[in-house]
């Protein structure tokens, strides 16, 4: 165990997966960087340096910089997965799925259903999401709910370095298409991470904190916000259970429902937009399946139904805050 950043944990997972299985390779824009450029060969290691150093160990055959042709290279990764490799492809920002969405929606997600049980697409797509650093409307979206809507796709959003490493190794070993969401404001977050390989199964939530007054379900970066909120509330005598589903699809419904059954109250926190998002998804499941145990309305804390603004004051205002979570809990705990 040592304390490392999210970035290092992810890098570690990729390195271990590549050492362990020569069928694993990486593909994406500037994931090494410097290809054919006159300067350094491993110039970037990805725009957030997550893949830094890997081209040194594995070479350009296995760490492949690409043209700005997301459809071609995501589709390539799918075809490579279909023919025996285990690609880990990077779509630099989740926003860029706009230009290659078809390869997820109509291809990776549906091959097995359309073509039969012989068809496998063991591809992991890493991408970044979330607000941070004044990246503005086209580089700050969350969007995982769009992928959760699509049958055939698995969606992962780790909230800490330990989970990030274990879930990424699980994703690479998984035989289905997985989209792996990394929050760009979390790369420098630190946590204890074992040095060896380990996996965390999909569909198993982590209970981050126990408390009898309300259940807070939060995703990705919002898990930390929810924990802070719970801490503040605890000092006022309000005790919350905080649930981190870790995978968005599949979703660990039973843990969520069990917690709500015990607390009778639910707050869902999601950095995405409110309409048809993960907050409504969880709220609806609970309203259908744990209604009898609910003592109060569910509360959803989300970003607003607006694009992400650039100006720093608006950007800060845009992100769901600890104070918003505290207020939501208070509004249903009397």
């Amino acid at each position: 165990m040592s304390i490392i950043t999210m970035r290092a944990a992810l890098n570690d997972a990729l390195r271990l997966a590549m050492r362990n299985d020569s069928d694993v390779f990486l593909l994406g824009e500037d994931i090494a960087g410097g290809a054919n450029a006159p300067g350094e060969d491993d110039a970037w290691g990805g725009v957030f340096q997550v893949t830094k150093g890997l081209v040194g160990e594995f070479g350009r055959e296995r760490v492949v910089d690409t043209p700005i042709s997301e459809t071609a290279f995501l589709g390539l990764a799918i075809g490579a997965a279909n023919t025996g490799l285990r690609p880990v492809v990077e779509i630099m920002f989740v926003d860029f799925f706009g230009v290659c969405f078809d390869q997820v929606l109509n291809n990776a997600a549906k091959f097995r259903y359309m073509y039969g049980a012989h068809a496998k697409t063991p591809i992991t797509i890493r991408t970044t999401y979330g607000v941070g650093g004044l990246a503005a409307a086209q580089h700050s979206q969350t969007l995982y709910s769009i992928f959760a809507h699509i049958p055939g796709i698995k969606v992962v959003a780790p909230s800490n370095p330990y989970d990030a490493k274990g879930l990424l190794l699980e994703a690479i070993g998984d035989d289905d298409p997985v989209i792996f969401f990394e929050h760009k404001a979390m790369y420098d977050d630190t946590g204890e991470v074992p040095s060896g390989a380990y996996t965390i199964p999909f569909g198993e939530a982590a209970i981050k904190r126990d408390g009898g007054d309300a259940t807070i379900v939060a995703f990705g970066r919002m898990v930390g916000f929810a924990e802070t909120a719970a801490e503040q509330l605890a000092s006022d005598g309000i005790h919350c259970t905080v649930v981190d589903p870790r995978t968005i699809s599949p979703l660990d419904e039973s843990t969520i429902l069990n917690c709500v059954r015990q607390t009778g109250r639910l707050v869902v926190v999601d950095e995405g937009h409110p309409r048809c998002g993960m907050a409504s998804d969880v709220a609806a499941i609970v309203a259908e399946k744990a209604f009898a145990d609910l003592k109060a309305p569910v509360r959803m804390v989300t970003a607003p139904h607006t694009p992400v603004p650039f100006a720093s004051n608006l950007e800060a205002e845009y992100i769901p805050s600890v104070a918003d979570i505290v207020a939501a809990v208070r509004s249903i705990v009397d």
Partner: protein
Amino acid sequence: MDYTKEELIEAYMQMRIIRAFEEELHREAEENNSFGFAHLYAGAEACAVGVCMHLEPTMRDIVASTHRAHGHFIAKGGDLNAIAHEIFGRADGSGGGKGGTMHVADWNVGMLGANSIIGASAPHALGAAFTAKYKRTGGVAVAFGGDGASNQGAVFESMNFAKAYALPVVFILEDNGYAESTYKSYTTAGSPCERAAGFGIPAVSVDGADFFAVASAAKDAIARARNGDGPSLIHCDVPLFFAHFEGDQETYRASGEVSKLRSDRDCLALFRAQVIGTGNIDTAELDRLDSTATQQAAKAIATAKSAPQPPPQALFTNVYASY
């Protein structure tokens, strides 16, 4: 001739089976046996067969196909019963009846799949080619696509990528002039070979009704790919014998257009004339092949028609590999 008699017989037989299969499906469609949006391949048989004869019927050599896939499936060695069952939505279809005509696939023989999103399968051919290069299998990937598809971003991106990374891909552009009801001259600038040249990809135009022309161009292109010399493009001018899809009224076609195509540009008639002319195969033998093919196709379809549908629980299976 560059081919043995056995090779010629096999090629003819495959073309004839495709034709017979499509004619039979057309009859079924007219009799109101619906199988969704069926896009018949008839007319372009020389393309599928002239290309696939140079490929191994395994996952080493891959074909990535389109909405108009029946011919590719059969030419690549896919099982006739499996495709017939799939088209009729039967449990024993290639995809368990859940894919249908626009999604026939047979990974045992390297038919990666029919894909009804125009252009979407070109990148998958890149992927198969990438695997071949990565694992040094000597494999080749073929991306079939229409003239309409040639205007889709995915296809351009794939051409660039294939050349820049010297992947063993062959692009086969099956140009029947139409994208549904719209003619290519309205929507399509430049020409296929000039476009390929823009990427530095060697390209050639051939008469897609002429089996020998296609086969020889394909042989060269596939050899180039196997040798590590990167992608090629073959532009095949092909006639379309049925409508864009079964059920379409074909009002965009001139009257007499199809019958003229059928009389002037039938790859089977052309092939017969060529092999009879050179004395390779005689008429009687060709006729025998015809009747065998027709019987095989009819039998596959008849069997499929009366086969059981998938069980109700199949609705929920194969969404994921792991659950």
